[in-house]
């Protein structure tokens, strides 16, 4: 209502636009990194489907620097117990998984085609109803 409130509004606007740009730039960088990682594994396909997942586990020592009343050993023990336990159970499962990987690694053309198909059919009522809630 008064001048002070207006100034607060300007402040909120400035901070808001700044934060939005920061957040989306960080996300953009993240997505680029994820994409790089995809192309790396595409070039040299590994047998570890989600190698990125265990990796951070190793990075957990960062937590030990802070003032927790829990030793990093405790954390590592719990995390490792969970992560190790589910190693390969049956060949059937892992082979099914491997074939799924193949699809992931070379999906190029089919994805583009389906994208194009979606463009063509974008006026269908189903597509319209999907969003805008």
């Amino acid at each position: 209502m008064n001048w002070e409130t207006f100034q607060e509004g300007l402040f909120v606007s400035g901070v808001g636009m700044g934060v939005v740009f920061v957040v989306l730039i960080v996300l953009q960088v993240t997505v680029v990194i994820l994409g790089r990682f995809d192309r790396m594994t595409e070039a040299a396909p590994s047998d570890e489907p989600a190698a990125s997942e265990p990796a951070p586990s190793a990075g957990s020592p960062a937590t030990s620097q802070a003032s927790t009343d829990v030793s990093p050993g405790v954390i590592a023990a719990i995390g490792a117990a969970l992560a190790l336990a589910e190693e390969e159970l049956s060949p059937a499962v892992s082979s099914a998984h491997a074939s799924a990987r193949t699809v992931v690694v070379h999906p190029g053309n089919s994805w583009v085609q389906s994208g194009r198909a979606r463009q063509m059919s974008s006026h269908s009522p189903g597509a319209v109803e999907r969003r805008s809630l």
Partner: protein
Amino acid sequence: MGDTGISAIWEGIVALGEDPRMIAMWFIAGALLYMGIAKKKEPLLLVPIASGILMANLPLGELIRVGGEGEPPGFLRVFQDFGLTTDLIPLLIFLGLGALTDFAPMLSNPKTILLGAGAQAGVFMALIGALLLGMTGVFDFGLLEAASIGIIGGADGPTTIFISTRMREIGQALPDVGVRDIVGATAVAAYSYMALVPIIQPPLIKLLTTKKERLIRMPYAMRPVSRRTKILFPIVTTIVVSVLVPKASPLIAIMMFGNLLKESGVVERLSNTAQNELMNIVIIILGLSVGATMPGSVFLQTETIAIFFLGLFAFMTATVAGILLAKLMNVFSGGTINPMIGAAGVSAVPMAARVVQDMAQKEDPENFLLMHAMGPNVAGVIGTATVAGVLLALVPALVGN
């Protein structure tokens, strides 16, 4: 006994005579039903919202009564108290939207993400506009109301309802602060203008772009996105946004959880339910609850007209800002970005992206921009949720001083 009976028989007609604004609201409900049913614009929300308006404007207000003396709270009051005021219902909508959203176009083309930021300027232009109107003394808009009005420019229904409900509740909890109940007005404005995006945006796009710019083709042989990336994206986004803007975490975390249900591929039954049955139940409750915030005595205020004008202003400035940012990016990228896709940053998924696609094809039938426009489109949803987090973090602190 006779008196009791006779007064009971006429009480409906008497109540109507005492507050004829109810009748005016019937016509507003009728107009929204016409838009939803005959014009098929946003029927999923407009039909329940209009029905909620009708139910909130029946004599004696049985469906929105507070209750007492052996009478429970009214049907819609229960939904409002347990669904709207607790954020439960808008957040469950976000769950379903997350499960419905395909982020692949954005993931395969990361440079378009930034365009989701530009359009958020509409939020803040409308916020400042509301404060300026408030300074005239004609309209009763403080910072809380201005934030609720601004968020209309995010072109995102549940986020608008989420923020305007929050602002109302925060204002009511502060002893020295007055706050208007504009939840219904902002929600109706948001959904109405989302429905009207195909009318609002094209003239602005034409005005701000040259024919040469509109003819820029963008290659549609996009980079494939691995399943792993699709799965990691919602997890990482939840963490990144929540660390940077903790107050945005409910919106982002729940939308991303919905997306994880979908992309994980291992819990299809949960993903389907989140998209369908749960979503439908929540839409019914949300629409009725929002409609029920609009008894004539609350809605028929001079401020409501200002809210509708500011909402339109917000949509327009969001479109303009999105296009200008895209033009800037086009210059820096050496003419490879069609500036029209900046207009898709206003969210209103997928209408804004489709407007861009249609305008591109009108000038060059071989130019397919939909997938490129979907990037800013879904990035705009994340951008608006971020803005909502900033508003929630700053506005109460500033108002509470």
